[in-house]
Every structure is written in C-alpha cells, then in structure tokens.
C-alpha cells in the first residue's frame, strides 16, 4: 500500500484540479431567465420586500426544506475584458442603494459616508489596482479568500457584469 501513496496522491491532485476547474465554470441553474427573475425582484421599487421564491434558490437555514440542502455556489474565477466602460451615475446609485449593491453598508465611498467594515474606497483610484483584481473581487471575493466578508455579487447574480463595471467607474478604479 505504502508505495502507492505517492502516485495516488498525484492522481488525486490532478482530478481535484480538474474538479476545481469545472467549478469555475459554474453558474446558477436556470441561466439568464433566472437571472432576470432575481433581478426584477430586488431592483429598487421591486414589488415585494422579501421575495421568498427567489430566496429558496439559494442555500437556506431550514434543513427540512429543499434549500436546506443546496450546496454553496461554486467559486467563479473571471477574467476582465477591457476596456472599462460604464456609467458613474448608475454606479453610484447601485453602490449606495440598500436593495442594489449596497457597498455603502461596509465602505466609505467617494462623496459618501459609509460603514467601516471594509477599507475606505474614497481614494481607491489612487491605489492603481489592476482592473482584473477589482473586477474579480467584486464578482466573487472568495477567489482571493474563502472567508472574505463581501457578498458574492457575481455567482448569485446580485449584480450583472455591466453593473459591476458601472460601480468600478464610480469608485474610479484608476487601474489599467
């Protein structure tokens, strides 16, 4: 048995890498249709305060319900296709609205007081972080650290690709 250990681990490592690769391609079941449904509910002025049918699509606390057994959304590693184009005004609205991106709950933003849980983003542009980095961090922060505090905006379709770009223009990413 002993002499098999190494090759076994190697096989396992390769398979695991493949599995991890597969995870990156994940998205919520139902595709764009589901995305539209989620977003119609959450956008400001949406009809329901707590859209229950949408929330049952994600893992929940109640183990007696099907959602109690849904696994966590797979980590999504994304690449950024430039150039960065977006609408700063829209980005500002998304970042400061509690039913939208609500970045302000945790961050101080350009021109806005905000929470102190994450670092202040009021001078984020001066730090010249790569667009790739900022985009990935907002899309799925778990790519950097599984225990990071931000919501998983991309995988759970809280924000769309374009909305994240709008927010990036608003915080003035300053990167290349």
């Amino acid at each position, binding site marked *: 048995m002993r002499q098999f250990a190494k090759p*076994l681990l190697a096989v396992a490592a390769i398979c695991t890498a493949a599995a991890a690769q597969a995870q990156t391609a994940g998205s919520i079941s139902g595709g764009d249709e589901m995305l539209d449904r989620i977003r119609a509910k959450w956008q400001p002025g949406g009809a329901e305060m*707590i859209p229950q049918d949408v929330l049952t699509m994600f893992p929940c606390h109640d183990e007696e319900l099907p959602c109690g057994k849904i696994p*966590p959304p797979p980590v999504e590693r994304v690449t950024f296709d430039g150039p960065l184009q977006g609408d700063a005004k829209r980005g500002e609205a998304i970042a400061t609205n509690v039913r939208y991106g609500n970045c302000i709950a945790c961050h101080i933003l350009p021109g806005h007081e905000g929470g102190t849980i994450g670092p202040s983003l009021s001078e984020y542009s001066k730090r010249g972080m790569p667009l790739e980095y900022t985009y990935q961090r907002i899309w799925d922060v778990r790519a950097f650290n*599984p225990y990071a505090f931000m919501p998983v905006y991309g995988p759970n379709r809280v924000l769309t690709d374009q909305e994240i770009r709008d927010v990036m223009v608003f915080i003035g990413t300053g990167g290349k």
Partner: protein
Amino acid sequence: MNRLLQLGLLLTLVATVHAQVQHDFWPGRERVIPHVSGDEMWSGTYKNWKDSEAVKKSMAAGMMSRDINFKDFRWLEKSFDGELKVDMGREVFHRKSSNGRSCATCHGENGEKLKGWYATQPRFSAKANRVIVAATQISICAKEHLSEDWPENTRNNSLLDMYLAYLSDGRDVDIDVTSGPMKEAYEKGRDLFFKRTGHFHFACASCHTGVTTQSYLRGQRPSTFFGDAAHYPIYHFPYRLPGDDVEDIFTLQHQIKSCQMLSRMLPGVEGSRTLTAIEVFLKASANGYKMSIPTQEYNMSTGYLLRDGL
C-alpha cells in the same frame, strides 16, 4: 490498476467535498462555548461589559462604544415604553378566556410560580417531544387550557413573552446544553449560525464575529453573539416585521427572522425547529449573564456617538 483508479477517485471525491465544505461554513465553530465569557476568545472585550458595574466603569473611563462591544447603549437603562408593554402583558396574563380560566389560574397571581422560568428557556418539552422556545410553550398553553389561538408571532403571545421575561429580570441566564436534545439543539443552532446562506452567501457569523463586529455597518452596530439574548424580548420601535402584529416587541425569534430578512436569507418560521435551534445557541451564549427586562433597541442617549466621534 482498477483498484488504483477507484482509490484515486475516492480521494478526489474527499478532496472535492472538502473544497466545498470550506465555503459552507464561516470559520470558528469549534471555538464557541455555551457561556457569556466565551466572548473573550472573539472580541476580547468581555471584561469591559461582563456586568453593569463593568459597563459603568468602561464608560466612565471614556472607552469607545466598540470597546464595550456595543453593549453600552442599551444595557444599563430600563425602557419606559417597554414597561407599558409589560403592563399590557400582565393584563393578558390575568384575562379570563371563554372557559373562565386565565394563565394566572395555573401559574399564580402575578405569575408567582413562573419567577425565573424565562431564564431557563428554551428547554426540552416532553409533551411536544422536542426543544421549544417560550413563545411555543405560550401557544401550547393557550390552546390547551384557554382554547385560544395565539401562535408565536401574534400580539398576545408577544405581550406574554415580554411579561414572562420580566418575571426573570435580574436572573442569570441558565440553560443546560450539556446533554440530550438540548445539546443536539445547541450544536445544530451553532452550525446554522455559522452556515452561509442566502442571496449574499452570508452566515449570521459573517456579521456577528470578526471584523464586522466592533465596526459600523453604516449606522448599525453588530456585536458578537455573546450576552445579547439575556435582554430579549426588547422594546423596538418603530419596527415591525411584515405581516406581524407584535406591539413593537422584538422577541429573539423576531430578531433572528429580521436579521435573515435584512441579509437576504430565506426567513424562517417562528417556533420552527430551525429558529428554535438558533435561539438555543444564542441563549446558551448568554449563560451566566444577567437578564435585564425591559430594555429597548436604542436608548435616548447619544453619548456613545460623541465618544466614538461619529
């Protein structure tokens, strides 16, 4: 070779499952203990608020609100509006139902026989054959003895909840989770508290441990999960969950549900096994802490804002 492949696949499976589990739970479940002093391992501020004397001292020393784990703004003062709710609860307690009986018929004038009871809830109920919260006991009693329909999220239930908690004012929270169904409930509640759920993929622990505690979530102040349960239910105006008629009384069940809603998790059903387990976990995390009833969500003093320079 076949064998080898099988083993490889098995290992892969284990590794993959492991990779997923790491995103399932917020870290730290193994570091909790069912006592308020457990906070020492989380915020490290326990000594600053372990009793009202400590809170007073910390404030006198000019400590920042966050150094007192935000326990200063409610813990010292009783709520006048809350007293009115206690009075209303007392009235429901003595009100005779259609069969001529009231809660007082069995539990004594002014709840004589229920002094200290609330500090020991939730507990295992042989009759229900599961662990239940106080509000569930109230609804069971109402149905069986008074022929009244007062489920957990109704007005009379919440008023009684406030009154019964008031009968334990000053007692130390004391629930035993060392064995049996209570231990099971505690461990399930703990795991649910650390489980990531909902649209944001947050756990309760995302906001009530680590960097989020002692920071500002915009204007709000999340604290660690130790001790808080000793002050529930609280008077909470003007806040009401959709569909609830609760006289601005926030039981711990309401609070859990409210946090679920605010963080885009599927809100649970009050009194359900799930929310009961979470309450057992929170209440046990207040073991050894003195109950203070009635208090309110925010007191009128804004001194803490000045001290924090916000």
